[in-house]
């Protein structure tokens, strides 16, 4: 099961991130998590939001380059070694991780991570078979 991530291209200029966030806010969309990858020239903002389609539309209308990408959101036990337990399964199958960032840590002792892997469908199958819990956007909103 894949979740939708919103990716936005932003130039390294003062106030640019703020403008993106303002558009998302204006669309009434809640940000659940984000990661900002930077290079010397530009940044790449990746977000998990309450309504990715609405946010994507609003950003495009405001002249931003944004897109929706499939990612895996894995819900793990919040305990020592649980991340490694799952990632080693992917490594064994030669699946490459493109990027990864944290989503939430729940009071109930669970932690969720966003993962982008080279072969997303295969990665999803492997993780599910290994007993991982994969979340949809709907699931995430309820966390």
């Amino acid at each position, binding site marked *: 099961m894949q979740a939708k*991530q919103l*990716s936005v*291209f*932003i*130039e390294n200029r003062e106030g640019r991130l703020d403008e993106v966030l303002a558009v998302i806010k204006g669309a009434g969309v809640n940000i659940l998590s984000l990661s900002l*990858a930077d*290079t010397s*020239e*530009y940044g*790449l903002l*990746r977000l998990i939001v309450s309504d990715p389609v609405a946010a994507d539309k609003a950003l*495009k209308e405001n*002249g*931003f*380059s*944004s*897109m929706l*990408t499939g990612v895996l959101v894995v819900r793990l036990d919040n305990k020592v070694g649980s991340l490694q337990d799952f990632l080693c399964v992917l490594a064994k199958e030669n699946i490459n991780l*493109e*990027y990864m960032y944290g989503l939430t840590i729940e009071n109930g002792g669970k932690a969720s991570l966003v993962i*982008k892997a080279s072969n997303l469908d295969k990665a999803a199958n492997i993780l599910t078979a290994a007993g991982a819990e994969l979340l949809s956007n709907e699931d995430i909103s309820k966390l």
Partner: protein
Amino acid sequence: MIWNEKMETMSREELTKLQSERLVATVKRVYNNVPAYRAKMDAIGLKPEDIHGIEDLKKLPFTTKADLRDNYPFGLFAVPQDEIVRVHASSGTTGKPTVVGYTENDIKMWSECVARCMTMAGITKKDIVQVAYGYGLFTGGLGAHYGAEYMGAVTVPMGTGNTAKLITLMKDFGATAIACTPSYLLHIAEVLKENGDLDKIKLRAAVCGAEPWTEEMRKQIEATLGIDAHDIYGLSEVMGPGVACDCEYHKGLHVCEDHFIPEIISPTTLEPVPEGETGELVFTTITKEGLPLIRYRTRDLTSISYDKCECGRTTCRISRFKGRSDDMLIIRGVNVFPSQVEEALLQVDGVNPHYLIVVDRVNNLDTMEIMVEVEEKFFSDEIKGLEALSKKIAKAVQQMIGLNAKIKLVEPRTIERSMGKAVRVQDKRKLV
């Protein structure tokens, strides 16, 4: 010192007579041997017999870069292919380069012209000349090389790209002269200064060309290196470097008029302008065999003076260039048309032709940055995807123009849209 007293100090009357004879012969030759020229002359009802001397020059139709492109690659050559001994090529306005062919005599004539120019710069056969232009299709390297060799100087084929080695050899060989672009020479001067090597060199003369430079830049080069720097001009279509050069008085560039007839025309009316006025420089070659050119529009803006020079030469002088009548850029000595960059960008899947070329000069070396808008269709959520895109664009540009450009990805619609002709170039260098 004058390399060829006879040709360079001839009276105007004699020169006009010589030019006229050579022009009449050239026109006859191209009419008979080059279908494209014949068609152009026939179209306006002009016969070779109508050309009696240089006073009839203005009756002849112009030749442009487009004619070279339309007859790519060898269509304008006026001799059978087995008489061609070398070809060079320079940038066309689009992907196809402009091809120039030389016969054995053309190479000799070119060497002679370069020797005249080097002599104007005070270089003699006793000198050790480092040629630090690019060797290859570009005319700079081989042109200067053959000229220096023809003079009998020790010629060192450095090429470009390895400044450290150039400096080592400059010191070790005791090189006394150099031929390269003025910006490269300034760069070399800075490196020498930084390394504290300025007193370890014997350099005394330079012939710099292939790009526009200012009088201030010349003075800066001369002061830093303690040398005489001269401006050599040429363009590959006409021949290459050596068409003109400035003498020790630096009051304009003496044209090798016994080989090339210069004219100045208005780029709008295409009519000759009065002497001394600025306009577009037009050349007719009158001795070239491989690729003779009739009234070739160089697009370089300048003026001509026919006053006798203090150096004793009687050949006319063109003034420092005042720009171009087209959008061609000269970056690190390489001719670049924005249309070529556009063509390269369009070869990359999904790239929109919204771009801006930013040219600057950092530490005396030209830099070229191309800003390209990241459109949705080639946007990626992965940095490596965006980096791959930059590399792909850079490679396409490199293959098209032979220069490495820095590609800067920018947000969509951030490059200013213009209502009329799009602004594609921002040249921050102050050269004119």
